[in-house]
């Protein structure tokens, strides 16, 4: 919505400008009349007091010149003021139309957002209920009649349960992704190095057995929405952590560089599984995966989330990598 305060300010500026121009036109008119009266007066003086046809003729000629000049200035003033008035009125009308057009669009957008929200709500609520039934009753079968079932049947039931839980996870992550697009943003100064340290500490706590050499450049500053950027960084670092898990001596580096245009960009680099650069454009699509779930677990939502967060900040995200020789993810925050 355009704030009412600003709209009033726009209208007030226009009203003042129009009133000012009217005043200029009015005073111009008075000055013009006064100036035109002046040669008449001069002529009268020449005739009455100085006398003689000579003085009279010279005066008459001079009065004619003055009168012509005054007339030109008068026309000039009238045309300028008229044009300015027309311009102001037109721009005022256009402004009002633009405001109402924008309000119309914003209303439609708000409606669409509300609809989307209630849609997401039913998706998360109603799609999960049947999944619970499938999982619950599959397990009930295994528990109640498992011993009588042929081993194949038990394995099939296991597969059903596995797929169900995975779909539950996908729904949750999809909902989280749509929330990233909806949540309100508040930009503030944040220390990305701090955030990265916290993410790493959490990973080390979850998997204390893993040895990863992690370097985080100190003092990485950004003006961005803290929870969203935290989520983006968390996804990137968790990816680096995950995709470097199948090699000895994993290293992860978080730092800052300048992109091709000299703008500052942050990066998260690992020496893990990397990716085939031919498919780099697929990295950021939701549910796109360049490795099998068996090789590296996951849903393929993480980088889509990162991209959405970066785009909401007006930034760019891109990746460099090669098969089996690590990947680097770069992003800017607008």
């Amino acid at each position, binding site marked *: 919505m355009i704030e009412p305060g600003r709209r009033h300010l726009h209208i007030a500026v226009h009203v003042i400008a129009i009133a000012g121009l009217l005043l200029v036109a009015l005073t111009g008119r008075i000055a013009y009349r006064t100036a035109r009266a002046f040669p008449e007066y001069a002529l009268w003086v020449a005739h009455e007091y100085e006398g003689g046809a000579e003085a009279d003729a010279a005066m008459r000629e001079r009065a004619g010149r003055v009168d012509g000049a005054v007339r030109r200035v008068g026309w000039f003033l009238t045309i300028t003021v008229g044009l300015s008035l027309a311009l102001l009125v037109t721009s005022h009308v256009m402004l009002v139309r633009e405001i109402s057009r924008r309000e119309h669009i914003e209303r439609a957008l708000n409606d669409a957002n509300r609809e989307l929200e209630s849609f997401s*709500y039913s998706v*998360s*609520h109603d799609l*999960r*209920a049947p999944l*619970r*039934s499938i*999982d619950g009753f599959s397990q009930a079968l295994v528990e109640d009649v498992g011993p009588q079932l042929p081993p194949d049947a038990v394995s099939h039931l296991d597969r059903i349960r596995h797929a169900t*839980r995975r779909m*539950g996870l996908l729904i949750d992550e999809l909902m989280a992704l749509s929330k990233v697009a909806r949540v309100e943003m508040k930009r503030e100064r944040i220390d990305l190095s701090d955030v990265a340290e916290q993410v790493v500490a959490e990973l080390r706590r979850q998997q204390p057995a893993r040895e990863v050499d992690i370097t985080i450049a100190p003092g990485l500053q950004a003006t961005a929405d803290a929870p969203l950027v935290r989520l983006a960084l968390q996804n990137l670092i968790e990816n680096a952590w995950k995709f470097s898990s199948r090699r000895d001596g994993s290293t992860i580096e978080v730092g800052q560089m300048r992109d091709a245009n000299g703008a500052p960009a942050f990066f998260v680099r690992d020496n893990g599984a990397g990716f085939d650069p031919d498919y780099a454009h697929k990295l950021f699509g939701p549910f796109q995966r360049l490795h099998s779930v068996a090789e590296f677990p996951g849903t393929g939502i993480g980088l889509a989330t990162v991209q959405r967060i970066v785009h909401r900040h007006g930034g760019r995200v891109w990746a460099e990598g090669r098969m089996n020789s690590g990947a680097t993810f770069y992003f800017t925050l607008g």
Partner: protein
Amino acid sequence: MNEILLVEDNPDDVELTLRAFRKSNIANEIVVARDGVEALDYLFSTGAHAGRPPTLPQVVLLDLKLPRIDGLHVLERVRAHPRTRLLPIVVLTSSIEEQDLVNTYSRGANSYIRKPVDFQEFVDAVRQLGLYWLLLNQPPPPPMPT
């Protein structure tokens, strides 16, 4: 030992919840209400439950999405009535939308549990819930007879 009131419209969820209680060796009687109206009738001894002695369940497990009167309204009505305002109410639902959390807690729900898809996790949740609300938690004193 008082009963548990389970307010749930999905028959599969009812069946699974009852199964989870059985597997957790929770022996309290479980009364099932299929929508908000039935739940309120049970609690206030009205309608289909007119004439029921005015005892209260030990805990109410309340789904939010319910036919006729939804969970939030049940919660409001229960909290508004002096006889039931202290009754422990555990919201048991699919959603973890922020609006649902805020709405239920601000209307005086005692706890909020999301039903997991994984049945094993659900059984664990029900076991802990039973242990906490039926054994550990000291219930509010029974209401004065009116």
